[in-house]
């Protein structure tokens, strides 16, 4: 395999965290290569057609795909080199193995920022493999990015923000959403997102689950049922709905394969989606010069991913010798902390502090 060495920073993943990391590092004088497996970077931002929460500093009120457009043009202006359609298939120390279209080569950098995001969790039930059962994020990609409806009548499984937002966006695209089922007795997503689809006439069934999807070559109907406190279906509560699509929005898991391979230390944090690489509050992992940002470091939101990206970009740039004023770190940390407040944010702030503590413990031992 051919080799390339970069006196600078390689960023893996061109979503909100990766774009912001690349932009921030480049603005501080670092040579930056941004690697993304899609033809165009932007990650999940590209299909987020809703307006973001946060404050003006977090680009609140701006639709996600516009934030992607802005960041990409800012990156280009700042001199970030973009490697599109490039898959990083392994990582050891600061060397990436890459496949660009059909060519494999490796790229050695002075620092690496992993911003690979998260992947959707699956749910297993009879019929879950039928064509028409798919991730809510998959449906969102087809609808908002490729402008194709994956089906016409949809059941959404999961009442978190992803399920509620994608249900709304399916309606906007012209699909019917027959309902949203959520196993918990309450919705974990924001009530304002639930209110949008309720006003639009979509029923939300809490304490309900999917029993089975049926169909000959693809989904034709789905049976749901109420469940008790132990998640057991209540006999007699079953109802069958004619649908051609079942969307699963049952959580996300940090996509940390490269960090595992490279040998980063991990800990399990259910509140952040599962195993996350231990990291400092500057987003450095237990491996020197390997950083993480965004959902790989714990599943949160695009707004927090942007801020973590900024911090990782600053830290990596500083680590390779670029001058970075300390005030910029403080400002980015402050913006990040402001997003992790209130009943939804407090727990994430707490867990993140725990991760940073465990990271520090690891550093002392080694």
């Amino acid at each position, binding site marked *: 395999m051919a080799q390339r060495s970069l006196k600078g920073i390689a960023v893996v993943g061109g979503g909100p965290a990766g774009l912001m990391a690349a932009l921030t590092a480049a603005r501080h004088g670092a040579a930056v290569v941004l690697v993304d497996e899609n033809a165009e970077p932007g990650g999940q931002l590209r299909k987020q057609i809703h307006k973001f929460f946060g404050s003006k500093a977090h680009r609140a009120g701006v639709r996600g795909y516009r934030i992607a457009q802005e960041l990409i043009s800012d990156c280009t202006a700042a001199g970030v080199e973009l490697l599109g359609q490039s898959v990083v298939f*392994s990582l050891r120390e600061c060397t990436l193995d890459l496949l660009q279209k*059909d060519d*494999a080569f490796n790229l050695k950098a002075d620092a690496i920022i992993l911003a690979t995001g998260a992947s959707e969790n699956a749910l297993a039930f*009879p019929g879950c493999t039928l064509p028409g059962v798919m991730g809510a994020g998959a449906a969102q990609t087809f609808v908002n990015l490729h402008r194709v409806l994956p089906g016409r009548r949809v059941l959404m499984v999961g009442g978190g923000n992803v399920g509620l937002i994608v249900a709304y966006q399916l309606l906007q695209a012209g699909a019917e959403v027959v309902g949203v089922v959520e196993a918990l007795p309450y919705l974990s997503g924001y009530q304002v997102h639930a209110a949008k689809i309720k006003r639009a006439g979509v029923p939300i069934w809490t304490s309900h689950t999917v029993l089975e999807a049926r169909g000959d070559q693809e989904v034709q109907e789905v049976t749901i049922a109420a469940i008790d406190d132990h998640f057991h279906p209540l006999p007699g509560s079953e109802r069958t709905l004619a649908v051609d699509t079942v969307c699963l929005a049952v959580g996300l898991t940090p996509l940390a394969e490269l960090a*595992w391979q490279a040998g980063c230390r991990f800990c399990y944090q259910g509140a952040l989606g599962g195993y996350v690489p231990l990291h400092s509050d500057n987003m450095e992992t237990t491996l020197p010069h390997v950083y993480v940002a965004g959902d790989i470091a714990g599943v949160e939101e695009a707004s927090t991913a942007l801020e973590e990206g900024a911090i990782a970009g600053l830290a990596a740039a500083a680590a390779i010798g670029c001058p970075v004023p300390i005030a910029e770190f403080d400002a980015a940390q402050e913006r990040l902390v402001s997003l992790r407040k209130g009943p939804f944010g407090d727990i994430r702030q707490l867990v993140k502090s725990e991760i940073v503590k465990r990271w520090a413990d690891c550093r002392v031992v080694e």
Partner: protein
Amino acid sequence: MTTDDDIIICRCEEVTKGEILRAIKAGATTPQAVKRFTRAGMGLCQGRTCRRLIAQIIAQETGQSIADIVPSTYRPPTRPLTVASLRRDNREVDR
């Protein structure tokens, strides 16, 4: 109606929940062991879809916390690629 045991867990290798439960009963109580026993996670996607489901089943059956279930080893490549692409060598060296 399909029974619980018939539910597909590993979509690539078509491993059912029943097969995984049998493996656990036979002593395969880690993701690594379940994988060797049943081939769950050894298909084209390399466990990317079923990994979490298998950890949940093991946790449930063995009474362990999901946090204590160590995932099976992550190996390259993280995406399917052809061996031919690794052989090619038509890039400039060191720019």
